[in-house]
């Protein structure tokens, strides 16, 4: 029998606010355990939560990017359960009234098909503390406890691992470009749980849902789902039935592994959080949150193509990484040679970063210096080989483009039309046979003549310009 997969995703995104969701402890990563903790984070009795405005602004930005309707009143609820990583014995979240509801995003599949994925809700909540399990004991790090999270819940509308992967890529791009999160799956700042079931093609009845947790890279999402589709299809085709269970993806085996069989759903005994009275969000507040949002990837891509004349490939490359596109944006304020600039960023800069295994933040060449170099190339002041030499010198000696050029002893190309024409005519006068050869269609003749011009000028003339002018002058003869 043929089955149709039904896939829904729950994505948790850690917000990179200055302080925690409900306390004033700082949000930072990689610090000494239990050094970013105030009494509230460890649920000391009597402490009270205060809502982090920045986190609300961030949540609004993401809601807007996902075309959601935004609740004009903030409500928080308690989700009650006992667990060692949950200091208060409850998590403050939004149950009844999530800040965002009923949105969507569009993914472009590899076959260029555009598919809209509807999104059910986006709510604000807080992270738990981090546990490190050992054989006979567990260590708790409360640095993470209370870090602001948004949870984005899709409708179960994805049908393949590819769609799910594209969906997560899109969400990741949105949260990163809007400046609300690092969006790093490997570091847990973006976490994805997959719900997947199979149903006979065309059937209105859903199958039993399996949850896949702890997927820690975007590529694993597709692999985990593809494996799970195959696993469940096999069971169903053999006449078996699917258990309701939680699984995790093990990349070394390229398969999903059973974590636990789910019995009844946990009753979280939700009720309203009495320590936070509902907060009215004015139109002005919401509009400002949206207006202050950095430009998203899609908009940048459009701008690169429509305003800067880049092709889709180049524009697409630039928006793969927010920091790269920010670098490009900065450089593009200082040169008009947008296409050439895109080439330099996409080829030379990226390959330097890859070779040295560094990020654009640690790239020694500032955007404005790169723009200067690009201008040199675009005005034919130096040729592209010279430009690469200058590029390397700028990096190694921390120099501006003109300083590096001078240090390398590179002399500017001559681009003075009148001067070049004068030299060309000297050459034409000296070698009338070459003119004849050229007119008879002997291609070599042109190269010879250019070579003679180069010789007379010690190679300083701009080759392309010389070529163009030579053709013009030849027509006159």
């Amino acid at each position, binding site marked *: 029998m043929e089955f149709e997969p039904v896939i829904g995703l729950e994505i948790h995104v850690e917000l990179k606010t200055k302080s925690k969701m409900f306390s004033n402890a700082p949000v930072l990563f990689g610090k000494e355990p239990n050094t970013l903790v105030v*009494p509230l984070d*460890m*649920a*000391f*009795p*009597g*402490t*009270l*939560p*205060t*809502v982090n405005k920045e986190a609300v602004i961030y949540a609004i930005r993401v809601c807007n990017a996902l075309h959601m309707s935004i609740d004009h009143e903030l409500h928080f609820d*308690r989700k*009650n359960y*006992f*667990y*060692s990583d949950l*200091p*208060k*014995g*409850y998590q403050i979240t939004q149950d009844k009234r999530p800040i965002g509801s009923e949105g969507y995003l569009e993914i472009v599949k590899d076959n260029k098909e555009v598919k809209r994925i509807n999104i059910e809700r986006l709510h604000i909540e807080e992270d738990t503390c981090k546990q490190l399990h050992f054989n006979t004991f*567990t260590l*708790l790090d409360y640095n993470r406890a209370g870090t602001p999270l948004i949870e984005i819940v899709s409708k179960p509308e994805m049908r393949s691992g590819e769609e799910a992967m594209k969906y997560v890529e899109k969400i990741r791009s949105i949260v990163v470009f809007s400046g609300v999160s690092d969006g790093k799956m490997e570091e847990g700042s973006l976490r994805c749980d997959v719900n997947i079931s199979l149903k006979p093609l065309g059937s209105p009845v859903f199958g039993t849902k399996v949850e896949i947790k702890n997927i820690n890279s975007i590529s694993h999402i597709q692999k985990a789902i593809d494996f799970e589709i195959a696993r469940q299809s096999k069971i169903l085709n053999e006449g078996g039935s699917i258990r309701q269970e939680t699984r995790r993806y093990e990349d070394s085996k390229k398969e999903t592994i059973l974590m636990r069989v789910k019995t009844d759903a946990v*009753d979280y*005994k939700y*009720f309203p959080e*009495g*320590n*936070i*009275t509902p907060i009215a969000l004015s139109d002005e507040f919401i509009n400002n949150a949206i207006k202050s949002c950095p430009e998203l990837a899609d908009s940048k891509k459009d701008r690169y193509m429509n305003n800067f004349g880049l092709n889709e490939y180049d524009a697409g490359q630039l928006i793969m990484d927010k920091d790269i596109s920010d670098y490009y944006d900065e450089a593009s304020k200082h040169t008009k040679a947008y296409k050439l600039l895109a080439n330099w960023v996409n080829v030379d800069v990226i390959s330097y970063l890859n070779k040295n295994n560094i990020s654009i933040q640690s790239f020694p060449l500032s955007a404005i210096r790169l723009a200067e170099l690009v201008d040199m190339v675009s005005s034919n002041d130096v040729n592209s080989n010279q430009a690469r030499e200058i590029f390397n010198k700028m990096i190694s000696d921390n120099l501006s483009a003109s300083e590096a050029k001078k240090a390398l002893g590179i002399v500017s190309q001559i681009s003075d039309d009148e001067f070049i024409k004068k030299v060309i005519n000297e050459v034409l006068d000296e070698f009338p046979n070459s003119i004849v050869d050229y007119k008879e269609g002997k291609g070599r003749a042109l190269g010879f003549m250019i070579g003679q011009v180069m010789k007379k000028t010690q190679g300083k003339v701009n080759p392309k310009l010389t070529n163009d002018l030579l053709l013009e002058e030849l027509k006159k003869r």
Partner: protein
Amino acid sequence: MNYRNLSINELHELLVKKEVTPLELAKEAIRLAKEDKNNAFEYIMEKEALEIASKLTVPEANNPLWGIPFVIKDNFSTKDVPTTASSNILSGYVPLYDATVMTKLLEAHAVPIGKTTLDELAMGGTGTTGHLGTTFNPHDKSHTRYVGGSSCGSAAATAAGIVPFALGSDTGDSTRKPASFAGLVGFKPTWSRISRFGLFPFTPSLDTVGIFSRNVKDSAYVLNVLAGRDEKDSTSSTKPVEDYTSLVGKSIKGLRIGVVKEILDTLKDKNAIDAFNKSLEGFKEKGAIVNYVHIPTEILSSLLPTYFVLSCAEATSNNACLDGIKYGPYYDGKTYEEVMMNARTKGFSELIKRRFVFGSYALMSENKNELFIRAQKNRRRIVEAVNKAFEECDVIYTPAAPSVAPKFTDSSDRLSDEYLIADNHLVLGNFAGLPSITVPIALINELPYGANLMTKAFEEKELFMFASVLEDISGLKNLVAKEDK
């Protein structure tokens, strides 16, 4: 000199005239606290009090609380001072921070003498369920009567004259009920008027800080210091703070006293009825108009079950942090579940566990609509009924309890006609979030008996005005239990 029956004002005058020093007052209060036979104290802050008091050498004439000793219920977080909420699950817990009210009193240069006992985790109204056992009513030297709770220790310490004022908390009537039994003024403000930061939560939407004092104006002085917005409590009001003493002693001529007929009708104790009626005559003599107002019996009968459902449900969640992992005694276990279960099994008394079980039950998805949601809806009906009653009066006036402090041996059916309403109606003030004050109105066989006044939200000034008139009518000001022999 004996300072036991002096008011804040009287002590202030002595302090400003340097007839007594804060250190002398603190030492005397500590001596009395050490001699306390009513089980009022969890912890006597001797070292802290002496250190603070000895630094107070320059009298502050415009600061009525300068050098005044006080005690504070042990469910307020106090930095470096053990805080147990009278529960074994917090034995040995020493907080890292001060509750905002503690900070404000310290900044006002009042002198903390100790932490007082309470019904475990403030859940209870008898003053008998804390981990140190029963707290006694200082007005009964034979130790046979309740002082009431949950703020039992603060009530006992103030009634015994150890300090002129004390902080309690009030979720159902935990300050105002013991005040009636102990002959004190017991005040709760409008919800959000005083920061709750550092008060161990019981039911956040009902919880307020409470003030005990021996006269009305003293409570107003303390409120002047405690009221106001606190950034650490986002529910605290931004409404400007007023001088809450400004209307004390002013005339209430022409103002309407609303007596809830249905509550008064449930009062069975003859002495209590007489005392209440007498005070009504007094109000009339002061030129007030007495109006009988109505809150349907059906609503009043629903107060206890509604309160029980909402408070237990929220308490279950509020106390889920007490799991033996982060603070309090640690009991071992092979798994985290075992660690938590051991701590919670050994740390809480049976009574508390029963409330948690009930609270969880009320929140379970299969019961939630029938219990929790229904109670929430009923709360709205209760508030509407209170607001309606205020259409015909400026203050609601009721007896504060069915009788004087009952004996431990009195068997009583808490759900009977005699108790169901008269013993529980003070929670109206918590449901509606309104300011409410209990004032002694009579001594019945040498035992104090109080009545309660409630005004509209943020009408604390007016409340103290009515209360001061009532105090004037009864003449029971600065009442102190006879000293132990």
